[in-house]
């Protein structure tokens, strides 16, 4: 998967939940296409058969069109089914069934700012250092409180590294305006709203290099606000963590 194939349709999916979303998108489009083609054929037929010509007259009395009622009921039923059977469970799973500690998730704090992403890993101790907006500075883009011991081994980087096969929880924060954390291949989009911390989770299925982007207009450099996404094997991920750890001058 080093060279993912992109085209004019859905990009490759590398997440566990993405298959559900793709399936929904595709099924809905088949449904839409069926309706559209049905209507289209009906309209085209009418245009030919009921065109104005000598000897042809319009019929005043309304036709009885039972099928229209059935069509409308059919659409309503189909929508209800899509809503209850597909849309709601997928959404509920993503929004309420977050991975728990026993699932061994990787937790990453993401700080968005004009026009950069910052990824903040808790480091070896698994604990994030204290952070707050009052600590933000040019040398401290994550807003870490350097007096907090938990934060000593925290890793802050500009590229997102995640292991394959382990759930990832991302806690989204913004320093300034609204951004949107979007990874097309992961089927993840989540607005990042200042003043709120919004978590989102996903799990990668394959390794590879992809892109994280911003999907909400955030100013002049909005189009440049992207970061690398590196999905690695768990071993490579641990190795990368070690390297970053060493880079901090620890161990």
């Amino acid at each position, binding site marked *: 998967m080093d060279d993912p194939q992109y085209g004019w349709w859905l990009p490759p999916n590398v997440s566990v939940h993405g298959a559900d979303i793709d399936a929904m998108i595709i099924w809905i489009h088949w449904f839409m296409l069926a309706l559209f083609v049905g209507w289209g054929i009906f309209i085209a037929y009418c245009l030919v058969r*009921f065109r104005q010509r000598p000897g042809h007259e319009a019929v005043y009395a309304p036709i009885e069109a039972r099928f229209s009622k059935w069509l409308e009921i059919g659409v309503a039923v189909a929508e209800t089914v899509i809503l209850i059977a597909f849309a709601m469970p997928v959404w509920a799973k993503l929004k309420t069934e977050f991975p728990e500690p026993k699932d061994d998730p990787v937790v990453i704090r993401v700080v968005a700012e004009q026009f950069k992403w910052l990824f903040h890993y808790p480091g070896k101790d698994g604990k994030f250092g204290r952070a707050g*907006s009052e600590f933000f500075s040019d040398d401290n883009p994550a807003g870490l409180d350097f007096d907090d011991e938990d934060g000593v081994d925290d890793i802050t980087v500009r590229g997102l590294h995640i292991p394959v096969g382990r759930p990832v929880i991302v806690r989204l924060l913004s320093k300034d305006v609204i951004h949107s954390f979007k990874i097309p291949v992961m089927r993840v989009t989540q607005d990042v709203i200042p003043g709120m911390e919004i978590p989102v989770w996903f799990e990668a299925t394959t390794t590879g290099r992809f892109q994280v982007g911003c999907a909400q207009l955030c100013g002049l450099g909005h189009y440049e606000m992207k970061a690398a996404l590196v999905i690695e094997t768990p071993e490579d991920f641990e190795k990368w963590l070690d390297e970053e750890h060493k880079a901090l001058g620890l161990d």
Partner: protein
Amino acid sequence: MSEAHPELGFLRKYVFSTDHKMIGIQYGLTALVFLFIGFSLMMMMRWQLAYPGEAIPLVGGFLKNSWVDNGAMLPDFYNQLGAMHGTIMVFMGIVPLAVGAFGNYIVPLQIGAPDMAFPRLNMLSYQAFLIGGVIMLASFFMPGGAASSGWTSYPPLADIATTGQTYWLFGMIFLIASSLLGGINFIVTIVHLRAEGLTFFRLPFFVWSQLVTAFLLVLAFPALQAAAIFQLMDRLAGTSFFLPSGLVVGGEQIAAVGGGSPLLWQHLFWFLAHPEVYVLILPGMGIIAEVIANNTRKPLWGYRPMVYSLLFLGFMSFTVWAHHMYLTGMGTTMSTFFQATTMIISIPSVIILSCLVISLWGASIRFTVPMLFAIAFLPMFGIGGLTGLPLGLAAPDIFLHDTYYVIGHFHYVVAPGTIFAMFAGIYHWYPKVTGRSMNLRLGYAHFWLSLIFMNGIFMPMLFEGMAGVSRRMFDPTGYVHAQAAHTLTLVTSWSAWGLAVSQIPFIINFFWSMRKEERAEENPWQATTLEWATATPPPHGNFDAPPVVYSGPYEYSVPGAETDFSPQYVKQEG
């Protein structure tokens, strides 16, 4: 025209007129100019998207230095264009054209009224619209340029943006005031000034659509009014209604007390903006219903269900606003509620569209130019409506949110949807307004070229969105998946310029036909509704004697009648 009332001076007749017809024409011409400007902005954006970083041909050399660098667009200018394209098209183009122009000109005629209920208020609402529009456009030339935070103006970005945003808010307040005054006027006019015998269920569908639209304007716009006041306070008085605590912009704590909520703006904005979507489409549906009934030479199929659907649609449009906000951290409870209301609101739209489609059955279809636009409206609006389905559901929205799919979706609704309806209306009522017919050949050329290029613009967008390309990108080619879809961008851009070229026959037709010697017939389409009961163009006061209505709006091909149309205002024998 002017012989009847020579006492009116030029100013009273053309500038400060209180005559609904003159105001309608003023609205129409102004809105067409604004639409053209909005379209031109978009054509420049399309150049940047198709050929990023290259100098804009033709106009690049004439643009301000703060906008372009050696003729190539700068990101700031791109954002201004994006924000203003949306604002101009929605608030200064389509609403004034659909409601201000068609509503003003046609509604009093179709209900047999001498004028609107409050003629001077009507004049005021046009003037407020004009002032608002001029403020919006003038903001381009202010230091810092026009608003650049998108037509949705989400804070905190809009709160900290350049002064253009302040002009945007002031302009918006005028536009809102204009719509409110207009809405009040329409409601009272339609309720009170219907001709004798014109009961509610004898109203043409167009009048119904204007009535529901007016209610939406009156009851939804105040939410944006409130939001605009808050944002103005944030920008001018330094309050922080939309700014949470601890914002750090460009490395510095911003001087605001905080404690506000960015989501508050989004709620208030969409509380207006979703009904606004129906403000954009309902008058269009009304025009399409008129044209289809007239050119199928038979009554509309399912008039009453259509009216009930319309009312239901208007009512429900107030309960779906947060489906624009699924990804703002919404939980399951709220998303379920808004997904359910969104699915419910799709049903009346389906009913109205099916009624229009079934009206074709058993017809005797005349392929006039307005009818061509009306027929094209059906599948085009169909695509627009259907593509709303995946976006209305929260889970697919996770992928499609803020991609070109969204752009394609709502442009299918408003561009080949509403704008085609507007063209149908212009071709249909042109003989009423000017007393001349428009040229047929130019009309056909305009229609076919527009149809092809409209789809050339918006169909690729749907695929681009499927490929995950985000909207509002000055230069999306930094993303790998966007590079892969770049061919689609080229198709869209060239189609956009093609669409511009295909408006030339329309512009020629529009002005040249006005100067024709030959007058059109009094009722060239053999229509049944009241606007054709008076002289062309209608005199001041519209009707020589108050008309009386004897039947429903679409009595075509009545068995036993002499002609295939039995006007509402003619008493039938037996």
